[in-house]
């Protein structure tokens, strides 16, 4: 346990503490700006994982029709499971691809919670431990205490408006990064809908209980996720009116197999219905094949939506 504590402090909490104090010093003695800059740095460092998450989501979108086919075709749960796993292997889909960026953020969030408690310390005793965490550099040691005011926030105390903002941004991010199930009545669709409101609600609820510096981190990280998802998915997949529904924004891609380039692993190509996806050789053919598949997917998506309307 001691070694875990050592790693936790020396690898995560202490460097984060000092880095945030340096940022605060550089950014006009503004700890709020430091938290924003820190969040952006963290999101940039973990951007490959975010991309991986988007790709996994897109792959999930593309697999929806086949998943539903399998569900219809195989009534025996065991066989159904085997077929699904087989399909995952075929397309090189890793269901955990979506979880990794979130898992990576978990220790950062907890460590940031500690850092904010240590640096902004609502109770005087909490500032006590800070001295032992600071590197011996006057630029850092001279920065204490930190300025805890940022806009309308006291970064060391909870804030209700910020909690609402956390809820809203988390909701939008969730909408943009979750694939809609092809059949609105199936279990996955209902689960997605539940997660869509439950997660923002939970985060909003807990933001009311933690220092608002942590809420600020969460708002910025969600905004970053929203912008990244918007750019990745393209404006054609974003419609303002979809923000006001309780459905994920990303529509399924009925006719498309997962984009090979979008897949994080190197397993074999999906077999069967996607000839273009079968081992194209050479970058030009790959690009053409991808374009074809995208066109087909978009057309199929439009068809599906028109038939739904």
């Amino acid at each position, binding site marked *: 346990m001691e070694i875990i504590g050592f790693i936790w402090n020396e690898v995560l909490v202490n460097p984060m503490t000092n880095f945030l104090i340096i940022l605060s010093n550089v950014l006009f003695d503004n700890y709020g700006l430091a938290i924003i800059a820190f969040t952006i740095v963290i999101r940039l460092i973990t951007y490959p994982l975010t991309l991986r998450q988007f790709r*996994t*989501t897109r792959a*999930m979108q593309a697999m929806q029709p086949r*998943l539903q086919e399998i*569900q219809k075709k195989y009534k025996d*749960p065991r066989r*159904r*499971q085997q077929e*699904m*796993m087989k399909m*995952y292997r075929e397309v090189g889909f890793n*269901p*955990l*691809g*979506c*979880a990794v960026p*979130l*898992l990576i*953020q*978990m220790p950062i*969030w*907890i460590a940031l*919670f*500690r850092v904010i408690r240590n640096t902004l310390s*609502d*109770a*005087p*005793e*909490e*500032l*006590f431990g800070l*001295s*032992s965490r600071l590197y011996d550099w*006057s630029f850092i*040691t*001279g*920065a*204490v*205490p930190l300025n805890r005011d940022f806009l309308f926030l006291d970064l060391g105390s909870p804030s209700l408006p910020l909690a609402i903002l956390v809820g809203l941004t988390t909701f939008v991010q969730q909408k943009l990064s*979750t*694939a809609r*199930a092809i059949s609105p009545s*199936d*279990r*996955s669709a209902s*689960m*997605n809908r*539940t*997660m869509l409101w*439950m*997660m923002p609600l*939970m*985060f909003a*609820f*807990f933001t009311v*209980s*933690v220092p608002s510096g942590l809420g600020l981190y969460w708002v910025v990280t969600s905004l970053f996720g929203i912008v990244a998802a918007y750019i990745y998915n393209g404006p054609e997949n974003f419609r303002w009116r979809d923000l006001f529904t309780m459905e994920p924004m990303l529509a399924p891609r009925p006719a498309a197999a997962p984009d090979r380039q979008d897949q994080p692993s190197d397993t074999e190509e999906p077999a069967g219905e996607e000839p273009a996806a079968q081992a194209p050789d050479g970058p030009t053919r790959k690009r053409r094949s991808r374009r074809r598949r995208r066109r087909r997917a978009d057309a199929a998506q439009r068809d599906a939506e028109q038939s739904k309307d």
Partner: protein
Amino acid sequence: MSHWFHVKHSPLAVLPLLLVPLLLAACGIGDNADGWAAPLLVPDVVIDERERDLIIFAAGRDRIAAIDPTDSTGELIWEFPDPARDNRFRGLDEEVPTGAFYGDPTLLGQDEILVGTWSDGKVYAIRIDGSSARLIFDTADSVVASVVADDRVAYIATTDKRVIAVDTDNPEEDLWTFDDLANEVWGTPALAQSREHGQLLIVPALDGTIHALRTADGGEVWRFQAGAGIGSDAVVADGRLFIGSFDRRFYAIDIEDGTEIWSREGRDWFWTSALIRDGTVYAADLAGSVWAWDAATGDERWAEPYDAGGAIRARPLLMADGEMLVLVVMTRAGKAHAIDSGRGTEVWVSPFEELDSLFYANPLALGTSIGSPFLVANEAGELYEIQVNRDDARECFPDPKPAQPCTAPDGGGSA
């Protein structure tokens, strides 16, 4: 588990993230304020027609209480607020919220003490015999620093960057308010007599700015900027202010104009109040180093600082051992050290290990000689009696041992 993946991976993916708030809750969301009010000895208080020596202290982290230390039952003579009266108190109409007390109780005249609350920022005057209390001022924020009393005037420094002077006999209107503080105030201000400006109130703000205010009208005479924040109390002696900072420096500042006379570097933040005796300044830092400097020049008195081996916030004590003066320091971890004040060498270190809690509060000496014990209060609001050269720490509150009662403040009792 894999069935989840068939249906949809995203709900499973976010589940660990949903656990984060729960983990944070386990890590201790909420108010961690324990307070560090020091105990206060008030001798010869008449209660029920009987004279008693009272120790007034922050009991159990959330109330001010009075005990007779020699009473082996540990029974509280009174507590503020009074749980038996639904946290109300005689003389007050409204309920008093329970919460931490950081400022030491301050004597106001002969009959009352002043305490400021952390939770709602109110300052109360409580009669020493516990017969009643009255509200002196509502800062509507928090009070960390001890209230300074001079005759009947109370000076209240708050965490919302104000200093308020209140006539305690007529508390409805404040005498003056200074609201141009650079930051909140955690260290207790000090009164000082300036030749040029009359009486001054020296206020250390948390961002390291020290303000000198005229007590007559609250006008600012000078301000001094330390290299980092200041959490320790201001101490004035011989026309100089002595105070340590989070920039690891200890400062001697001229009271007249706020210029630096000397400053010395420690090994970590200074958070203790300095102790000045016979031209020597004693202070300790959070690295556990205890320093002795010449008050006039800043020259080191000892060959090297004494290493107590742990962070120190509590103010040192000086006790006489024959011809020698012994400096007593208490580490945050609960180790007491007695040091030869002339040479900075170890005289005694407490051998007991049972004080398994944190000690921030200043100790209270029950006498001036090394044969007298001193009281220390921990973060849980428990009170212990320690004596140099004695091998045990006696619990005075909440569970005193009848076989080892705490000592009467006059030095009698069982010691």
